[in-house]
């Protein structure tokens, strides 16, 4: 496998006719960890949903490409098979479908018919990943996300990430609702993915996550655009000083999308 590149150019996205993203530019390469930070209501989650193809979000302008392929032309499942992954902030619950059954379908969706993963191999792999994420083995046989606690859902998202091994992953507030121990476990899973073939975009309010997963690039989002980019030190300054200095610097009064 070679390094992948996700390129977002001048992206404008609307929901229910209201424009939320107003020209986002971003490039993520294999091997890189990016973090997008910013206060609530600035469009961070909209960006992740638009990349994955959430049915409610409409791209009104701009492009998203993965290794030159037009992502916006692809259906959601095609985007995933092309190598994109989104760890969702609010994963759906699906009754009657076990976690293991779902994961195996996801793995086999990437394989040719007749070349499905053997059950033994799949179970071995899943057990290993669940151990690393300190998940109870019975979670494999529970219905997908049904009755999972907030922390269990987040771990389960990372379990999927580790199983699927995408080229580029977007983690939407993977740290929200996690206590410090759970955050460490989740971070361990994410860090295990590090490598030349894996690029990652973390979306977060808090610098806390970045104590465990050091980003190469940090971007600040306000008013539906990336307004400032820098290295890991930018996140540290935000942690220490908050967002006001950026607003002052850029002459922004209200950072939310209008």
């Amino acid at each position, binding site marked *: 496998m070679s390094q992948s590149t996700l390129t977002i150019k001048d992206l404008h996205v609307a929901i229910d006719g209201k424009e939320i993203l107003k020209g986002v530019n971003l490039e993520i390469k294999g091997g890189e960890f990016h973090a997008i930070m910013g206060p609530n209501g600035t469009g961070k989650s909209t960006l992740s949903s638009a990349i994955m193809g959430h049915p409610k979000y409409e791209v009104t302008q701009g492009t998203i490409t993965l290794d030159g392929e037009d992502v916006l032309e692809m259906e959601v499942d095609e985007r995933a098979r092309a190598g994109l992954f989104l760890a969702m902030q609010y994963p*759906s619950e699906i009754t009657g479908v076990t976690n293991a059954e779902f994961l195996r379908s996801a793995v086999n969706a990437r394989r040719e018919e007749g070349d499905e993963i053997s059950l033994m191999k799949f179970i071995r792999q899943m057990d290993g990943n669940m151990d690393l994420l300190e998940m109870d083995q019975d979670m494999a046989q529970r219905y997908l996300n049904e009755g999972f606690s907030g922390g269990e859902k987040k771990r389960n998202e990372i379990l999927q990430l580790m199983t699927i091994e995408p080229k580029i992953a977007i983690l939407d507030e993977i740290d929200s609702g996690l206590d410090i121990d759970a955050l460490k476990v989740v971070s361990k899973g994410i860090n295990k993915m590090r490598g030349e073939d894996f690029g990652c975009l973390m979306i977060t309010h808090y610098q806390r996550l970045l104590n465990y997963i050091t980003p190469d690039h940090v971007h600040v989002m306000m008013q539906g655009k990336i307004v400032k980019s820098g290295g890991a030190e930018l996140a540290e300054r935000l942690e220490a000083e908050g967002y006001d200095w950026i607003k002052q610097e850029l002459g922004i009064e209200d950072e939310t999308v209008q």
Partner: protein
Amino acid sequence: MTETKWSVDESLIRDFSTANNEPEWLLNVRLDAFKKAEDLPLPKPDKTKIDKWNFTEFGAHNVQSAPFNALSALPEAAQAVIGEENDTQNVYVQRNNTPSILKLSDELKEAGVIFTDFATAAKEHSDLFQKYFMQQVVKADEHKLTALHAALVNGGIFLYVPKNVEIKEPVQAVFIHDDAQAALFNHVIVAAEANSSVTYVENYISTVKTEQGVANIVTEVIAGDNAQISYGAVDTLTENVTTYVNRRGITAPNARIEWSLGIMNDGNTVSENVTNLIGDGSYADTKMVVVGRGKQSMNFTTKVVHFGKHTEGYILKHGVMKDEAKSIFNGIGKIEHGASKSNAEQESRVLMLSEKARGDANPILLIDEDDVTAGHAASVGRVDPLQLYYLMSRGISQQEAERLVIHGFLAPVVNKLPIENVKKQLTGVIERKVRQ
């Protein structure tokens, strides 16, 4: 009802009865019912109009089919439900209207178990059969379709379990529909005497398409004192076959009837499943799953009537409607005056997969006694687009995502089915019906 077109007349009924050497009482039941069928009204399933449905026109009342000479000669779908041939198997195979294979183990024969096709039962066990046939459970003159059934019955099975006999392996009946001309008027009687127990599983399998066909099926289940009957059915009749299927049971004191029904026909279907809990302390449980697709319309009435004290009735139904399929789920728990300490519970859920699919669930509790408990739950909804988005975001195709959601929706019923064979079959049938 003068416009009703008939594919049969009285002389055909006489000839058919003679050809089968039927006892006179049966011919009389037929002729009497045929006269009444003309004037009796159609049943009125709640919220589905069936007066334009075809219940009376079909290719032929009696088609002669070559019998299969061994289980291994059966169509694949039938072999799959029967499994490998072995010595302890108790199985009946009917090809269209022709009894084809009948196996009953020596052990059960010696115990006095009767398991035989309709014509043989009427001929060789006339007195016993007459006691049950449309006498205690379903009556010929209830409406036009029961009358037509009594007049035209041309197949089915009689299963009689004597006192204290417990049959461990399921008894199976497979009805194969592979002649486009065939009309199925099958009658099934399962009678279990005191302290006996039996599991019976039937399959309807179409391997042929037809322009216009009719299935009019009546089942009578009679559970004696403390008897246990587990009744499973998986119906997969083809489109353009209009199906009326009435499966009804009655219980003596402390008897139990469990129904495991998978109604997967592709044509219009009226299904009526009733248990009359007559004896004190008796019990009924109906679990049913349904998948509708294409333009079919279906109506399901599931009813438990409590007459005895301390009776319990449970209904659990889940259905999925695809394409432009329509279905009505009527659930009725009725507690008669005097049936104190009884409990009536029901749950019906319908999931619609497309804009044009329609579903409706009507939970009804009719209670004429104070000292009882009862409850119902019902829901009708469309598939959640965010669930599909979530599954697809992992690379799963839309079709596969829908399959998972459907499978998941039906699993809470399928997983609880008491008959392992039916559980296994249904998983496969659901899969096939969902995929196409």
